[in-house]
């Protein structure tokens, strides 16, 4: 197939780079844990961007 007139060569990405994709997934999972932990500290619990306000939890903690 062609991309704007240039022939596309399907380089086997997953076959050669699968460890890096596993690393991306693990880092994503770790940073999600860190984000959820940091959002519940005293400094950010009352920030208006916190997702608990969208769920209907309207009290000041």
């Amino acid at each position, binding site marked *: 197939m062609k*991309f704007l007139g*240039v*022939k*596309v*060569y*399907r*380089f086997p*990405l997953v076959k050669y*780079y699968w460890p890096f994709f596993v690393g*991306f997934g693990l*880092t*994503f999972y770790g*940073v*999600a844990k*860190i*984000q959820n932990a*940091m*959002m519940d500290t005293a400094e*950010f619990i009352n*920030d208006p*961007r*916190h997702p608990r306000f969208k769920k209907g939890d309207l009290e000041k903690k």
Partner: protein
Amino acid sequence: MPQLIPFFFLNQLFYGYLALFALLVLVSWVILPYLLQLQIVRLLITKL
């Protein structure tokens, strides 16, 4: 410090990895084969 506001961590990582993956596909499927074909054609033209 605005780099350490936790509400944007996953947003940065998601779009950052998406951009890197899109670039990886663009580079390895389109750009690098085109440049390699240019080098091979120049070699064949001058040597044969």
